[in-house]
């Protein structure tokens, strides 16, 4: 077990408003961690600071032992972090499958020649261009593009939306957009996945399945997942290793689901209403 994400005394101010105040936590490799807290307590802001979208006011953030101050989001993604946004932001005038094909790493190859080749030789079937039955040019299939496509369709299968592959993402329903967003974030082979309410608005059974799939993903590939989720049923019962509870910009407590359930402070601060529903 190595520490993959280390946040220490993170502070973020918006003008006069302190959104996040001395938040510290760590995520180990292969951990499935939940992040909960009432609305406006600074969860998304913490994500934004980690992923490089916002500049932190003070504090330290280390990913894979490297400080990420002054790193742009694309550099941070290349280090192995992928995040989703709370308000799903898909590329709307592109198809679902195109959306999934953008994040994969190293799509152009390394050498200059590979890069030029990736512009023109990206067909997934052998292309034979000819006149009157003779072949003039044969363009062989591109293996890596084919593999990317296969992977994308597999992920759509898992998320139960393969029939939407060729729709524009602007045509998707809210829940379907969430699913495609999760799929897109998995296409980049992250080592650390930050998911901001990924299953809000997804129907119960499918949301359960997504939690199970995430659990399996963690077990099989050893990625770490940090997930923000308001639904206590999922966060307390669906195989999350550890929960970080935030309140009013700070960390209230950390612990296993059982510890969190037993903590009176948490129940008062957050579970109050949702806790009774269970």
């Amino acid at each position, binding site marked *: 077990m190595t520490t993959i994400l280390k946040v220490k005394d993170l502070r973020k101010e918006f003008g006069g408003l302190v959104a996040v105040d001395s938040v510290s936590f760590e995520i180990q490799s292969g951990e499935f961690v939940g992040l909960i807290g009432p609305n406006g307590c600074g969860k998304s802001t913490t994500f934004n600071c980690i992923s490089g979208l916002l500049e932190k006011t003070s504090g330290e953030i280390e990913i894979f032992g490297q400080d990420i101050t002054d790193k742009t989001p694309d550099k941070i*993604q290349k280090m192995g972090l*992928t995040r989703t946004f709370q308000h799903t932001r898909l*590329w709307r005038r*592109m198809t679902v499958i195109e959306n999934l094909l953008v994040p994969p790493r190293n799509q152009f190859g390394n050498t200059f020649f590979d890069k030029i080749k990736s512009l*023109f030789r990206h067909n*997934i079937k052998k292309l034979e261009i000819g006149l009157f039955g003779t072949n003039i040019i044969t363009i062989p299939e591109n293996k890596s593009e084919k593999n990317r496509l296969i992977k994308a369709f597999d992920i759509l299968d898992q998320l139960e939306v393969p029939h939407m592959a060729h729709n524009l993402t602007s045509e998707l329903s809210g829940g379907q957009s969430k699913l495609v967003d999760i799929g897109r974030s998995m296409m980049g082979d992250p080592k650390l996945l930050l998911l901001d309410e990924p299953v809000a608005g997804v129907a119960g059974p499918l949301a359960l399945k997504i939690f199970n799939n995430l659990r399996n993903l963690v077990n099989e590939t050893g990625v770490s997942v940090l997930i923000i989720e308001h639904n206590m049923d999922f966060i307390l019962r669906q195989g999350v290793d550890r929960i970080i509870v935030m309140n009013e910009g700070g960390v209230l407590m950390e612990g296993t689901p059982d510890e969190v359930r037993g903590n009176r402070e948490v129940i008062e601060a957050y579970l109050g209403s949702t806790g009774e529903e269970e």
Partner: protein
Amino acid sequence: MTISLGEILRLLLSAEPLLRTGPTASAIGLGSYPLPLKDWWFCGSQVEVGPGSSFTSANECRSSEIPLDSPSIWISDILNMGDPAPYSVLLALICITSVIIVWLLLNRVLTSPWGRILKSIREDEDVAQHHGHDVLRNKAASLALGAAIAGLAGILWAWKLTGIGPSFMSPSSTTFLVWAAFIIGGAANNRGMVIGAMIIILMESVFNVLVVASSPDLPLYDTANQVDKVFIWLVSEQWEVTKFCLALLTIGLVFRLGKLVEFAFWGTIVFAFTAWMMNGERALQSATNYAGEITISGAGMAYVKLLLIGSLMLFSLKYNPKGLLPEVPHRPTRPNGGEDA
């Protein structure tokens, strides 16, 4: 960004002494540069062109008494033109070939990994950056590709004009037209772009002919005159316009037409104010002739062109915002035989 950079470059280059090598060395711009394949086009491959030969230049070949065995003669025989085919025919052929090549290249790039990354940056560059793509680099690369294509077009254009100067590129005759072409034809669609460009260029040449001819029996001549007259009336007879606006205001108030009242109210104020400022004098003093009449020569056909293109763009944006041919998204199908890959 792109436009301002281009403008900076243009100003810098217009100070460059190497580019002042026209017929008169002090003039900015280039001229009398050699045209590609011109000798071959008029003289064929058999005839030597040069100081020692009987033909010293391609123009001599063209006007030669005995028809030479040259491509321009072949084409003119096929098309029954009589004279040797002009050099612009060869240029047209070169242009069509380049359009086809650029078309094929761009279509290929559009569905490539880079193409979809550029599209994702167009849609939401924050998210594209969060998925590991350097926005600035990709934008710069696409700018470079676009500039390369524009450069190619510039070469063809320079060959057509046989001389160029920085003043040939005015925004209303270039940038604006390109923009109009893709709004009308359909952005992000190569076919739409070509169709849009054709519409615009056809309109251009029709109107250029009209401007030059500018005689009363041409279509739209009257319209142009009317527009001119209305404009002259608006700027020179402000008190009349104010009265007209007041009349409109009354009509609006009587019939309770909110929009008309608003329009007429502001019209009254603006024109009354300008009329007061001008002290009742005619605004177009400098354009009046000795008899105090305002004259505009040539019935402003050039403006009718811009007016038409502008309204075409407006209608296109309002009723068909995606253009004639909208973008076609890429829909790769699931590859079969996935297991072995």
